[in-house]
């Protein structure tokens, strides 16, 4: 068709009819080839919305003969798991390979389970406030897992085998060979769909978006808010057309060209898409000369005619509407507002919109780059877009940065360089009070050093899931921080001495999370230090600190302000003696007490809990055997504010008991059956 228009315009003796034909064909081209006007909303998958004409080309690159189905081969990263790292019970590696338990339903250790469930952690005293909350998407992701598959495929189906409490998966991402993350599926009805009441395992197959690029890395994102209890996943099956890796370079080149096309101006784009290029045969120079002399003007005038016509049509419409409009059009617009009002308005915008609105006009640009709008930065929802360039742009704008959340950025792809981050911190870090770097992959020893040296005003430091296995990051400069009120080291391995030094230096510490970091750390020593130096502690999480002993429990009774404590899987000894009683007597403000798998608990200990904890709201007694029913009823009666009671894997309890108590005392009681065998 391009050839026909060229020949049309070449011939000067054409009638007006033909010229209008030429115009129509230009408009046609606009519709068909210029695929940028398609309705894709996401700027990050512009590579996807290629025009239909290019579909044929891509198919050529695939080995289009057969489909393969593959289970996950390995786990590249995850944000949280229930078990400890070396274990094969309830941990992330269980999601690889074929399903071990599906289609059975139950709480099996051969599956992957995460640390949290429901909204209970958001109701605990240690709950976090979001930084820059307007950035957070409607359905925020709480956890993720990144899976690696063996073969490159063009994915068209994914099956997630959920064997316990299905319904936590909210997004599926794919990492393409063009080094971008594309969201293949998002759960739009997360809040409106009815709560999935589980009794059966589910093979969940969300409908995936079609993409043209092959992938072998998939990321699943989870949100547990609507779940009753832990969710567990047995396996993930990805299927699609196998991609022939020999063609990878060709495909990459092709998409590079496509991408370059999209960054050109509109006229050049049109030229490329119309394939209006000189055909490089022998006399191409002559043809080019001919075109430039005769047809270029016509071409440009045709284009501008089209534009002028469309503008005229629009103006006519406006005039018509304003003629019938009775009210006077106000002359005061956005640009007449005082600067402070504009700032206030813009403070409600999320980061993406802020950047976009800054591209509108000079005035709006000045407003949108004002440092007051960048005192809190949350890049976690943009983890897939975060890059060194973004960081340097933000560094220019964020001169009074107070709170920074860069969790999940730099995940598996080194798009953020450690040196750039170091520079960022050195430039902007001195007024930082809140810093969250959970699950980031770009931190190295010198970054941590810089943090310790520059950010001495830090009140909150969160380094969850931050240690590459082995070697340990050298955190020693963190000993310089002296104003910490919240320290989160969930799943991060830290040296014992450094931890003790940090505890000594931070007397104002209120929230401390040491879950999973404790195998090499002597928890009793830590407890001693806390008792001595951190008396203002409000919440303490020592999940899976296997070697915390009753001695440690006893000394912790020095912290009278404790409202939340998690001793799950600690205290492995035979009996706690009087330590629990002592602890409960001193810490009367306790609202959340988790004693999962503390097998040494006896009836007497539960009596103490009932009598000494009037403010208790959440209690976890999972896996504690040998307790009589009366003790449970006692607790339910005396702890009037109790909202959550976890009695899974306890004995002496029947289902009807649980149902009765739940109704009578208005408490959410978790109890689950023991799975039949350990196949």
């Amino acid at each position, binding site marked *: 068709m391009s050839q026909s228009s060229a020949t049309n315009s070449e011939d000067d003796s054409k009638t007006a009819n033909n010229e209008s034909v030429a115009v129509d064909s230009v408009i046609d081209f606009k519709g068909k080839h210029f695929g940028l006007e398609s309705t894709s909303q996401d700027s990050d998958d512009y590579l996807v919305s290629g025009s239909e004409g290019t579909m044929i080309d891509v198919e050529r690159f695939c080995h289009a003969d057969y489909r393969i189905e593959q289970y996950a081969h390995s786990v590249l990263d995850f944000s949280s798991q229930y078990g400890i790292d070396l274990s094969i019970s309830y941990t992330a590696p269980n999601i690889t390979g074929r399903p071990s338990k599906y289609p059975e339903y139950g709480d099996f250790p051969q599956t992957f389970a995460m640390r949290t469930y429901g909204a209970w952690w958001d109701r605990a005293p240690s709950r976090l406030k979001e930084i820059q909350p307007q950035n957070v998407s409607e359905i925020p992701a709480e956890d993720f897992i990144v899976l690696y598959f063996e073969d490159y495929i063009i994915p068209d189906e994914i099956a997630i085998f959920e064997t316990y409490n299905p319904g936590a998966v909210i997004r599926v991402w794919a990492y393409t060979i063009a080094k971008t993350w594309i969201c293949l599926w998002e759960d739009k009805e997360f809040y409106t769909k009815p709560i999935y009441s589980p009794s059966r395992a589910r093979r969940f197959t969300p409908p995936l978006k079609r993409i043209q690029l092959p992938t072998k890395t998939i990321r699943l994102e989870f949100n547990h808010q609507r779940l009753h209890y832990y969710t567990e996943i047995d396996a993930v099956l990805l299927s699609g057309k196998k991609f022939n890796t020999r063609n990878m370079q060709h495909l990459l080149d092709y998409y590079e060209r496509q991408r370059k096309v999209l960054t050109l101006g509109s006229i050049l784009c049109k030229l490329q898409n119309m394939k209006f290029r000189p055909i490089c045969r022998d006399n191409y120079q002559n043809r080019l000369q001919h075109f430039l002399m005769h047809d270029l003007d016509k071409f440009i005038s045709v284009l501008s005619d089209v534009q002028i016509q469309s503008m005229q049509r629009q103006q006519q419409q406006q005039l018509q509407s304003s003629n019938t409009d009775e009210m006077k059009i106000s002359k005061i617009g956005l640009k007449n507002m005082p600067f402070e009002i504009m700032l206030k308005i813009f403070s409600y915008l999320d980061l993406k919109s802020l950047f976009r609105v800054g591209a509108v006009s000079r005035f709006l640009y000045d407003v949108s780059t004002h440092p007051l709008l960048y005192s809190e930065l949350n890049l976690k929802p943009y983890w897939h877009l975060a890059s060194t360039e973004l960081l340097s742009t933000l560094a220019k704008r964020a001169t009074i940065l107070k709170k920074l959340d860069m969790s999940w950025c730099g995940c598996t792809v080194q798009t953020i360089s450690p040196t750039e981050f170091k520079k960022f911190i050195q430039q902007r870090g001195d007024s930082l009070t809140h810093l969250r770097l959970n699950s980031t992959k770009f931190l190295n020893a010198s970054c941590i050093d810089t943090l310790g040296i520059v950010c001495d005003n830090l009140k909150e430091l969160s380094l969850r899931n931050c240690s590459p296995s082995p070697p340990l990051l050298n955190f020693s400069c963190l000993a310089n921080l002296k104003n910490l009120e919240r320290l989160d080291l969930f799943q991060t391995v830290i040296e014992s001495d450094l931890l003790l030094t940090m505890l000594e230096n931070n007397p104002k510490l209120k929230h401390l999370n040491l879950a999973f970091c404790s195998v090499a750390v002597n928890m009793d020593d830590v407890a001693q230090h806390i008792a001595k130096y951190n008396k203002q502690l409000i919440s303490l999480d020592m999940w899976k600190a296997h070697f915390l002993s009753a001695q440690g429990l006893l000394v912790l009774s020095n912290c009278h302000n404790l409202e939340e404590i998690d001793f799950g899987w600690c205290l492995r*000894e*035979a009996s706690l003696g009087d330590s629990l009683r002592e602890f409960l007597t001193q810490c009367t403000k306790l609202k959340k007490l988790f004693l999962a798998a503390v097998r040494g608990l006896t009836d007497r200990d539960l009596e103490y809990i009932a009598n000494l904890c009037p403010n208790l709201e959440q209690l976890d007694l999972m896996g504690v055997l040998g307790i009589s029913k009366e003790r449970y009823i006692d607790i339910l009666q005396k702890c009037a504010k109790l909202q959550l009671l976890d009695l899974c894997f306890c004995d002496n309890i029947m289902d009807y008991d649980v149902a009765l108590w739940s109704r009578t005392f208005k408490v959410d009681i978790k109890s689950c059956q023991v799975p039949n065998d350990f196949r």
Partner: protein
Amino acid sequence: MHSLGWSSKLISRALRSGFSALLETTTNVTSNNGGSKSRPHFISVVCGFPKDFLTSKYKPGKYGEDSWFKTSTSNADVLGVADGVGGWRSYGIDPGEFSSFLMKTCERLVHCVNFNPQRPVNLLAYSYCELLEQKKPILGSSTACVLVLNRENSTVYTANIGDSGFMVVRRGEIVHKSEEQQHYFNTPFQLSLPPPGHDHNVLSDSPDSADTLSFPVKDGDVILVATDGVFDNVPEKLLLDMLKEVEGVTDPVKLQMTANSLALMARSLSFDSDFMSPFAINARRNNINATGGKPDDITVVLATVAI
């Protein structure tokens, strides 16, 4: 607390010195170079009887309180048996649960990335650690015997705790045999996880105390892995006679028949009250006047090596 102290040492050692040092993973594992080297493998069969055979239901992987597993990966063949200690019944604990869990976890661990074919002791150790990570508490104790054939170097590595064991027969002779580990008569070494409060009364041995042995194997070797139900009831000579008949046999049906007869023989002898079983001989040596066989669960895992 002995068991806990040990496991903390193991875990912290593992982390401090790095996983690789403890495991000594073999590096040249994954090449599939078309069989230029000879790749030995087991042909293995299982047979057994629970003590209460006439009244109990069959459960796969268990014979009463005994439990077994056999599995293979691309570079190893693994066999294992475990014998749950029956004394726990009086505490209300099912003795078969512990041994069953141990064997099933060993099987899962074999297929893990970290499996080291040259140290079966690690299988037992990590399996034991997994016990502590179960939501449902698993209590009890058991003996265990694990045998790994490393295809790379045609060598068998074994780890044995307690009175289960193995026997290797070549050219009509016993070339390797495991030793019974006992604290005192009828009290073998055992891995155990007692209920809280009973730690001091309970014998608990750490996987470190396992006997480890390694030896090369040749084509046609016969390997028997069994619990004490076999070794206590069938005299060694009789075992040898039966095993030397299947040397070099690769037909699994014939092997199965031999395993069946072995198990049946053990069972009939165990109920024979006049027969001087090895158990009775041992008892007499310990000044206990006993005759006849010892009724017990019987598990026989029989394998031949084919190269």
